[in-house]
């Protein structure tokens, strides 16, 4: 995207994916507990959007809700539209077709492959069973895709089992498999978190290159603000099951709109210099169901909180060309810069 376009309202063009007021409750110990509260975000075709947050923020649950992978008993309010169609209405073959268009890759690829099936069977399954592609053709496409993700000797890889590949290589296989059905949107849930940092750089490079060359949109879920900012056009920051900020990635560090975003950036140690003291955020991140009703969920940890922050839940409000769920966002503008001590 270009700088002139708005981060808050990606107008002009219909978004590829639109999440509107998504609230999800899950049964825990006989009670329905909120995991997502009124989440709204849009992704345009070809756009990379980062989804950043700590434990319990709801970032993974958002991706699961989008891909209709919520646990049994989940109560869902709000709408998800993909390419104009209501995702909640899909079933059977339509849902399988949707999942080919909205592919997902996970943090731990080993938990998402059948260990006793060969890589080739796993990779070509969706092509063969959902899209009716002949086996030989499907294998040819798999070989081609493995080459594109930088895997040598792809024919041999197809005959191997998951345990014969390292974590980094298996994640590249997962990316290749996800791309085989020619999706329009990739949901990437911490795909490099378990990898070594040099392997992460490689996998991110592959993901970034292929995403651009296929015009693929991506929702990139991570706890790493720096990583999201480096590879995504816009970044969505979540806290306690809510979106608290949506911002163009290049402005996330220099001009954040929510105190939590600024605090998160400031809390990270810097590689270039040792801080005499890290600017830790007091307390711990809240899960959605723990958030007190009728007040800002971040207020108890926020350095800028005022009594008024405890009297109402702030709305996600447009500011400059971003969105912030902070009632003081406008007055704090420019004072939130994540400067290290």
């Amino acid at each position: 995207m270009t700088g002139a376009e708005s981060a808050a309202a990606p107008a002009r063009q219909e978004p590829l994916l639109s999440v509107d007021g998504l609230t999800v409750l899950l049964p825990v110990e006989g009670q329905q507990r909120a995991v997502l509260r009124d989440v709204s975000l849009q992704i345009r075709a070809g756009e990379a959007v980062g989804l950043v947050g700590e434990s319990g923020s709801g970032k993974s649950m958002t991706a699961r809700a989008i891909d209709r992978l919520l646990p049994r008993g989940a109560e869902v309010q709000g709408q998800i539209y993909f390419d104009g169609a209501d995702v909640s209405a899909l079933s059977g073959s339509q849902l399988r077709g949707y999942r080919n268009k909205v592919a997902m890759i996970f943090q731990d690829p080993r938990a998402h492959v059948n260990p006793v099936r060969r890589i080739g069977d796993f990779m070509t399954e969706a092509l063969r069973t959902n899209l009716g592609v002949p086996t030989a053709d499907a294998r040819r496409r798999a070989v081609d895709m493995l080459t594109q993700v930088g895997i040598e000797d792809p024919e041999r890889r197809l005959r191997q089992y998951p345990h014969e590949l390292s974590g980094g290589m298996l994640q590249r296989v997962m990316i290749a498999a996800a791309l085989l059905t020619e999706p329009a949107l990739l949901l990437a849930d911490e795909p490099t978190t378990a990898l070594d940092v040099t392997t992460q750089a490689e996998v991110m490079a592959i993901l970034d290159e292929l995403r651009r060359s296929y015009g693929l949109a991506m929702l990139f879920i991570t706890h790493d603000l720096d990583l999201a900012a480096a590879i995504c056009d816009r970044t969505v920051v979540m806290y306690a099951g809510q979106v608290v900020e949506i911002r163009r990635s290049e402005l996330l560090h220099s001009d954040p709109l929510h105190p939590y975003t600024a605090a998160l950036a400031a809390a990270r140690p810097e590689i270039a210099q040792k801080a005499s003291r890290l600017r830790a955020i007091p307390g711990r991140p809240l899960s959605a169901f723990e958030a007190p009703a009728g007040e800002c969920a971040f207020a108890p940890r926020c350095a800028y909180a005022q009594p008024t922050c405890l009297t109402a839940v702030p709305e996600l409000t447009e500011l400059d060309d971003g969105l912030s769920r902070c009632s003081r966002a406008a007055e704090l503008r420019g004072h939130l810069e994540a400067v290290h001590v």
Partner: protein
Amino acid sequence: MSEPEAEDGGIAPVLEVARLRKEFGSLVAVDDVSFAIPSGRSLAIVGESGSGKTTIARMIVGLERPTGGTITACGGDRSRPARSARDRRRRGSEIQIVFQDPYTSLDPRQTAERAIDEILRLHHGWPADQRRARIEELTELVGLDSRQARALPKGLSGGQRQRVAIARALAAQPRVLILDESVAALDVSIQAQVLNLLADIRDETAVSYVLISHDLAVVRQLTDDAIVMHRGQLVERGLTAQILDDPQHPYTRRLRASVPRPGWKPSRRQLVPAHSEGEVA
């Protein structure tokens, strides 16, 4: 905690490893590694999976037996297994370790309080009220509330379990605390708290950290010196700041360049063909 044995300003190493070697069958996991940690200084062992850094830690705490070389802590040899319970206890008061994965390192039947209490009884033999006070201090220090302190590991998150493990290791008041990726799994806001906590503890107790980590920013925050491991070998050593500002070895340079930062563009590696490092041995 006892004073360092050397009275000359902490020059005598609190931990020394010489020509350390570990073979697993035909694989040389650690190949001729030597380093020393002067009393009160902290060392980072930097490297990726398979570099041998965790194997070094496991040998130091006695979970693996070296194939060759020596490990000396506080003047005593620990290259061979402890011979008695007393010897084990002495070693425990010299060096403690906090592992990466708190899911497997805590006793599933023990609450945090009981896990800490056990160490306090074993190492200090304090009466109940003194132990109780210290348990409160330690759980408070690592940021566990009273419910969490009384919960079993299965009722805690990964980050909370890790804090239990840190509190438990600190209960022994060790001279050296090995942190094996101990803050890697923590949320950023919590990680900063724990890093500040670890810095405070070092200021108060002069404990030396051996920080085993792939996270160079964390390494910078917590250590004075660093060694870089690659495929079992020590490829670079020096002051942490120097290694991070001006890495010399090509591997250290690649590691440094792989860290996401504003303006960072990930790139495919050109130097090493993917298959040579992609295969599981």
